[in-house]
């Protein structure tokens, strides 16, 4: 009984860490325009719309976070093998991984933006100086929480994978969940804020991203502020639920029916989410209604 209570406590803590990680990951990637919406940031100067948006997308979020979290976990694991206090090892490992992220962000921004020189897009050194540190700070939160979560899963719950391998697995899953959930909110709602609400961006409008803020030109910190309102928390909840429910069903039901208990609970959870999804889909069809004729659409 005591071990189950301990397991549930660790599960809850891991879920909470994952929630923070998901929120920080999505906000970081939106400030850096690393997700799929980067295509528009890259396209805009080619269509004649010069901007001051940070752009560090030379890899998708899943492999990038797989690398950074695996690095953080690997370094922390090495420090722990050297008998350094685990908490200090986790902080040091994550901090060193963030320096790699900083190098990545700097070279990616310079490289991607320099490739647009023929379209007249300048490299803004002040953008580089002010945005890189902000993405690094968010990346530290995401990497540290994920590495700590992996350490809990490994050390307290006894998962067979070593810490670096767990870091790679959950880093890739973190990037996948964060980019899937948060990208549309940043891509459609923020970059195309001038388009009508409640409709997709017409393909003809591609590249015409919003470039001006309330005062002066819009920068990526404004985008981070905006996506932290819904895209970030939703990504956090998504990743937190994935981690929590995956561990919860294993810890509680692993020994029920020789392993089949956890499987049946997993299937029930999948069905519950399918019902919620269908409910939201039908709700939208009823409340938003069809678009009607093309002349009236977008309202």
């Amino acid at each position, binding site marked *: 009984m005591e071990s189950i209570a301990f397991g549930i406590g660790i599960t809850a803590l891991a879920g909470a860490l994952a929630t923070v990680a998901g929120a920080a990951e999505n906000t970081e990637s939106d400030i850096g325009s690393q*997700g799929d*919406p980067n295509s*528009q940031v890259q396209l805009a100067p080619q269509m004649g719309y010069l901007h001051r948006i940070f752009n560090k997308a030379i890899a*998708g*979020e*899943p492999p990038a976070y797989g690398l950074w979290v695996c690095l953080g976990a690997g370094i922390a694991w090495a420090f722990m093998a050297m008998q350094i206090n685990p908490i200090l090892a986790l902080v040091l490992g994550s901090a060193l991984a963030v320096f790699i992220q900083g190098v990545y962000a700097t070279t990616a921004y310079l490289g991607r933006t320099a490739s647009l020189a023929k379209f007249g897009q300048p490299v803004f050194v002040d953008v580089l100086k002010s945005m890189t540190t902000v993405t690094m700070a968010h990346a530290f939160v995401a990497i540290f929480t994920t590495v700590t979560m992996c350490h809990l899963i490994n050390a307290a719950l006894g*998962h*067979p*994978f070593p810490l670096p*391998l*767990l870091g*790679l*697995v959950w880093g*890739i*899953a973190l*990037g*996948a*969940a964060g*980019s*899937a*959930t*948060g*990208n*549309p*909110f940043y*891509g*459609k*709602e923020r970059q*195309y804020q001038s388009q009508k*609400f*409640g409709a*997709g*961006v*017409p*393909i*003809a409008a591609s590249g015409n991203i919003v470039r001006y803020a309330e005062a002066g030109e819009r920068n990526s910190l404004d985008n981070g502020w905006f996506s932290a309102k*819904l*895209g970030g928390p*939703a990504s956090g909840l*998504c990743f937190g639920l*994935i981690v929590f429910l*995956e561990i919860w069903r*294993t810890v509680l039901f*692993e020994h029920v029916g020789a*392993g089949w208990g956890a*499987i049946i609970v*997993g299937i029930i959870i*999948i069905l519950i*989410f*399918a019902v919620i*999804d*269908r409910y*939201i*889909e039908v*709700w*939208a*069809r009823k409340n*938003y209604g*069809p*678009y009607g004729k093309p002349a009236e659409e977008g309202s």
Partner: protein
Amino acid sequence: MSAVGAKPQAGGAMDMPATIAGIILLLVIIGATYFMVGPGLMFMALIGIIIGGLAIAFGVHFVPVGGAPAAMGQAPGIATGVAMLAAGAGLAGLFGGAWAAEQGIVVAVVTGAVGGGLMMAITCMFVTFIYVFGMGIPCASGKVAKDPISGDTQAEFKSQGTEGHGLPFVSYVGGVIGGLLGGGGGTLIYIMLLDVYKEALPGMMQALPAQVLPIAVSLAGIFAIGMFLVNAVLTAYNITGTIEGPHDPKFKRFPRALVASAVASALCGMVAILIVAM
């Protein structure tokens, strides 16, 4: 952009010379492995790895991926890359499957499958949540007039100038099936390799089984992740960009990916087995 502009090619046609060459290559690799390790645990592991690879390649075709256009609500699907999303789901499944490895191969593979399905079920639900409540956009497919599962009509919910948006219910179900197959396939590869390494490493390193277990787990885990990515990326090339799910005409291309995946999995599996067999 280019993914939206591209006309979906139903082309499920197999290139016969390439298919035959692929099958011959597959038989050569299987035969060579049989010749080197003989019938037994290692040969059966290779067969298991090929089956796992096929499950991954087939599963990736189910995952609804819209890429960059989906991030602007210009095309249906999840706004990320095919290989990346499938890898995220499959590896989450592998995490669960590895945890259940000691409970037998069937329980472990099914646990891995459910883990992958669970990851996709939650992610797809949040995609719909963001589209509906964050962006005020209902789900609409651009490839079919009616959702094959729910029967909902799609065309009138598609906003002008787009290919559709969000995840219609058939895409949601496709995503979950993709996660199930990916998680199960990845776990099968892991279990097969783990058995081989647990058997061969103690003799090779002249150590007790308990001492080599962490090395066996790490090796099997990293090879399973690597083979997962090989199969997911191969399939992404077959899909070329975006796919809505099992109702998309591009889905019919899957036989080509299965042949390629069988060859790639056999080759990777042979290397993974021979590092301890030779």
